[in-house]
């Protein structure tokens, strides 16, 4: 921009009032956008909040999983896996994780810890001890290791599985 002076003004300055007005307008719009982003964050659009919390279950209700729909890269989160009482035998129960689970999420800990970890053609199987005929809950503390849309799946061996469509923010 070439410095120019308005007639009657001795000051040589590259002022452009129209640009300045557009600039102010852009600032105002940006503030509104920032406020909207913060409001969305408070609601859970960027993980942790009502928009993010969700649950899914198999059609017969044998397996129910509460999980966050939105995660952030390297930010720990928890899946709560409920197994119906009728699905727990005297040998306990087994959960199976699909390969995408292992590819996209690191399991920091499961509570309780499984008795055995097995690899199967379908992925990874975790065998849990449990009191026969009593409902069981397993907490998966996980840490996303990749970002984008992922679809981990947890199945109850002998019953169905639940897909968890999740978006991981970078």
């Amino acid at each position, binding site marked *: *921009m070439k410095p120019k002076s308005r007639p009657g*003004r001795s*000051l040589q*300055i*590259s*002022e*452009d*009032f129209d*640009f*300045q007005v557009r*600039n*102010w307008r*852009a*600032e105002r719009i*940006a*503030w509104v956008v*920032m406020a909207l982003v913060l409001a969305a964050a408070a609601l859970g659009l960027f993980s942790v909040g009502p928009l993010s919390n969700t649950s899914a279950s198999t059609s017969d209700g044998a397996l129910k999983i509460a999980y966050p729909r939105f995660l952030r890269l*390297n930010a720990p989160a928890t899946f709560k896996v409920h197994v119906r009482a009728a699905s727990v035998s005297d040998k306990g129960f087994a959960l199976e994780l699909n390969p995408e689970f292992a590819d996209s999420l690191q399991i920091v800990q499961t509570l309780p810890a499984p008795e055995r970890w097995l690899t199967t053609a379908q992925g990874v199987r975790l065998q849990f001890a449990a009191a026969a005929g009593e409902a069981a809950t397993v907490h998966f503390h996980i840490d996303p290791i990749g970002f984008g849309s992922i679809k981990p799946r947890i199945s109850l061996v002998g019953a169905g599985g639940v897909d968890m469509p999740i978006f991981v923010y970078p």
Partner: protein
Amino acid sequence: MDAVARGLFIYLFLLAVIRLSGRRTLAETTAFDFILLLIVAETTQQALLGNDFSVTNCALLILTLVGMDILLSFLKNRSPRLERLIDGLPLIIVEQGRPLHDRLRKSRVDEDDVLAAARKHHGLERMDQIKYAVLEANGGISIIPKDDK
């Protein structure tokens, strides 16, 4: 790749946010501006490095940030439009001792700021001794005193 992408994103994001927040008083840093700067720096640092504290990551990041700086200064030099988009333009806020209230209000600068700059740089006492006050692109206020002060 990861380090470069992180560096690029954070550089551009900070550039946009700082520019659009309209912090035109950055040159006159108050105590709170200083605190804000510290907190932003601390917050940024975590996301920039991620879990990778290797020297390689550090070197890549520094190269990315310095590279962006060189590239932008080069582009700004070639394109005046880009320059004013990124740096903004100076704005006259006092003319012949008369504060331009609409401009002051929209820039979130008040008459006291102008008088403070006038005192500090020229030892002026009153608004009517100021010929021009200009809010510079870098956020500082320049004062041109009237000849007959």
